[in-house]
Every structure is written in C-alpha cells, then in structure tokens.
C-alpha cells in the first residue's frame, strides 16, 4: 500500500473506516476507498446499499458516525463550516434528479456557482454559462428557458453544464443515466467522458447502469451491505471471480445478493 501511494502520490479522495447508521439500520459499515488523482471511479451496487450516503458523506451533506475522509490529504470529517465551504469549491456534483433551481432560468442555473460561490459579475458568468451549455450540446437560446420547460435528458445536460461550470477538480455523478432512454443515456455518458477529459478532473460516480459504468469508469468498485466488496480496473470486471459482482453485472435475480425491502 505504501509503495502504491508513493507511486501515485496522495490519493485525491481517501475514505477509510467510514461508518454511518440511521437509527438501527447500518448503512455504511467500514468503507475503505481511495480515488487517485485524475481517475474515474464508478461505484456500483443495488438500491439501498449505501452508495448515495457514501457520496453525501464525502461532500459533508451527511456526517459519518466514525472514520476518516481526506480530500487532497486534508481530513474533512468534523471540519468547520467555513473550511468545508473552501473544500466544496473543489467539487462539482451532478444530482440524480438534476436538482436544477426552478426559480431561475437555465443560464442562471449554470452560472450559479460562479455568481454566488465565486462572486463573478453576472455578465461575465453568463458568457461562461453559454459556453458551457455549448459544450453539452445546447444552444444559447436554451439559456433563457426555465428548467421546467426542458425534457429530462435536456435537464440532465444543463445539470452537467452546471457541475462543470466552475471547472472543479473533483466531479461526482449520482446515477447520471437513471430515468433516461438508452440513447439519451449514451449521449450523457459521452458528454461526461468528454467533459471530464477536457477538465482532467477526478470523478466518482454511483450507478447501477452497467453500460454507463463501463463507459465512464477507469476503475469499478462494488458496494454491498455498506462495504466495498470488490475494487479493480474496468477491464477486469468480467473476470472478477466474485459471485456478488457476477450476479450484479449480469442482472440475475438468483445469487448471493438478496435485495432489502426497506430503505435505509
């Protein structure tokens, strides 16, 4: 481990021994995970296995019960609110339901992090927003619309533009293709790969869409019952030798994984 770290430098994100429970339900049960600089890691796993909670723990939206989460070598668990804001400036996030602000127009959504977070002038932020919309294949005229006027796939594009607008070092994708038809999903996958390559960003994605995972990942990690049970390069996923992984990537009902009925 020490040798590996010496070769790749400090991991961009280092999660170790993270536990989180809600009431009696244990959601994260000692998660250990490193994401190297510039790497695209995709976490796969069924519903209710703790994928979202892990992502939210790293962002500080959920406070872990114990364990350590380091971003660029800096411990973020138990950090003060103002220090947290500084760390969050490194992050961009694409939410599952897009989470666009419906009281604002499309370009104001894209420019939000620039205007509110970085205190940029509106006119200048607007130019950048239009440019970012162009990078996700949307024309400037879309900028004046309200998010509710757009289809789900278009909203996802806008959300992607918003996530990359501040040119973050780390981008999180929360189920980027859920709820989209296969063609639109593939378009979003291509856009994600292109945008990430352009920025050289480190990314962490969660998904249960294997086509999407294969397309955007360098490495894949599988989470089950709050633990990482497999972690390896994307090329090795088909010969992982792990029954859980095999069952999941082939989408079989029979196997070692039994799905929980209750939400965490």
């Amino acid at each position: 481990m020490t040798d590996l770290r010496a070769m790749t430098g400090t991991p961009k994100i280092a999660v170790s021994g993270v536990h989180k429970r809600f009431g009696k339900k244990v959601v994260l049960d000692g998660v250990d995970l490193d994401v190297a600089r510039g790497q695209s890691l995709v976490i796969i796993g069924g519903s209710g296995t703790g994928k979202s909670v892990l992502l939210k723990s790293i962002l500080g939206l959920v406070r872990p019960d114990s364990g350590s989460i380091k971003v660029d070598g800096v411990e973020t668990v138990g950090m003060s609110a103002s220090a947290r804001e500084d760390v969050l400036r490194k992050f961009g996030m694409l939410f599952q339901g897009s989470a666009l602000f419906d009281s604002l127009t499309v370009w104001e959504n894209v420019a939000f992090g620039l205007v509110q977070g970085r205190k940029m002038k509106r006119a200048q932020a607007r130019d950048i927003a239009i440019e970012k919309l162009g990078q996700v294949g949307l024309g400037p005229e879309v900028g004046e619309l309200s998010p509710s006027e757009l289809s789900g796939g278009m909203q996802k594009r806008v959300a992607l533009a918003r996530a990359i607008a501040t040119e973050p070092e780390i981008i999180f994708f929360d189920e980027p293709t859920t709820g989209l038809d296969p063609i639109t999903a593939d378009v979003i996958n291509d856009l994600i790969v292109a945008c990430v390559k352009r920025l050289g960003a480190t990314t962490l994605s969660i998904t249960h869409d294997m086509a999407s995972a294969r397309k955007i990942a360098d490495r894949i990690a599988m989470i089950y019952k709050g633990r990482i049970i497999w972690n390896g390069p994307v090329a090795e996923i088909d010969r992982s030798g792990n029954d859980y992984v095999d069952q999941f990537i082939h989408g079989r009902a029979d196997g070692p994984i039994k799905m929980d009925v209750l939400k965490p």
Partner: protein
Amino acid sequence: MNPFAAVGRVVLAFFAETGRITLFTATALRHCVIPPLYLRLLFRQMLVVGYYSLPVVGLTALFTGMVLALQIYIGSSRFNAESAVATIVVIGLTRELGPVLSGLMVAGRVASAMAAEIGTMRVTEQIDALTTLSTNPFKYLVVPRLIATTLALPLLVLVADIIGVMGGYLVGIHKLGFNPASYLHNTFDFLQTLDVVSGLVKATVFGFLIALMGCYHGFHSRGGAQGVGKATTDAVVSSSILILVANYFVTELFFAQ
C-alpha cells in the same frame, strides 16, 4: 400497548422538536448578522410577502372594521354609550384585531408557500445542490424570508389599521348615522401612541414566527409529495398557534404600561 410508553414518546418527541426549532432559530439568526446578505432575494421576498399580501390583508381589515362598528354599536346602545363606537373600533383594531387577523391571514398565505417551496427544494435535492455550489442554504433561503417577513408585517398591519378604521367609519356614517366630523374626532382623540406601537410590535413578532415556521418545516420535510404536504400543513398550523400564544404574552408585556 403501554400507556406510559405512549405518553413518554409524545413528551420526548415534543422536547426533540423544541430543541430542533431552537437550534434552527439560532443558526438562522447567526446567519442574519454574518455577511453576505443577498439583497436581491431580500427585496424579492419583501415584494412577495408584503406587496402581494396587501389585497388579502386589506379586505380582512375592511370587513373587520365594518363588523366591529356594527357589533359595538349594538352593545354600547344598551347603556346609551353609542359615542364610544369610534374609539373602541380604533383601539380594538390597532391593539388586537389588526395584528392578529393580518398575522393569521399572512400565515395562511406565506408560511404555506415557504414550506411548500423549500420543502420541494429539499426533496428534489436542490438544497444539497446549493451546498455543493458553495452557497449556504440558510443564507440563501432562510435569511431573506425571515428578514423580509419580519419587516413587512408591521407595514402591512399599519395599512390594515388605516383600512379597518375606514371600514368602521363607512358603516358608522352610512349605516349608523354618525356625524363624520364627530366620528373622526372620537377616533383620534382617545387614541394613544402605545395602542398603535404595541400592535406593530406584535406584528413584528408574528412576522418572525411565520417565516420561521415556514422555513423550518420546509427545511425538515422528507418523503416526496406527501412530506411536502405535511410540511405545509404543519407550517400553517404551528405558525397560527404560535401567533395566538405570542399575542397573549406580548399583550401582557404592554399591559402594565
């Protein structure tokens, strides 16, 4: 079913909720005094809360003033004190009915809208999105609503006082046959500054409570459309009850003076 356990659960839930509201209030107040303050949003909320509530509050005040004049006339005529109508109308409105009824109407209009809007933002992860875009949701959502409603309600109540007195005046002149000059004379001769000021202090407190409950219930809503519906109901019910409770204590505060 153990009855002690049931009572205990309710008591514990009550204290837990009180604690959460206290923490929420403290956090909100702290963010009110720490910059930055989003002035654009503050003005927008002033418009939504203050200006757009004018018709509702105005109509409430008008008809309250009118009915007050009629009822007081019936009561006071039984002991030949009809001349007191104007005085009692204005004192009743400024001290009590103006702030309380305006507060309740605004609670129905504004607390519900705040809880529904913030609650929807919560369940669609828009509040989490604010955080990831380096924007504090308290500063962006709660502080503008809190300050705007606290400032707007006294202004609304001032307008309500004037319209309510006008309602009483119209009924007094056209229905009860008072002389206009003497009605106005009776209205202003016995009115003290404290009558109006105490009503405006009440309005300030009510405005704060309305926005606090709207934001608190929206912020803590969970579980989709049903959760947002519950948050909206809770916001209106709790702000209305708190208005009535606070009304007594503020009245008592001014009673000694």
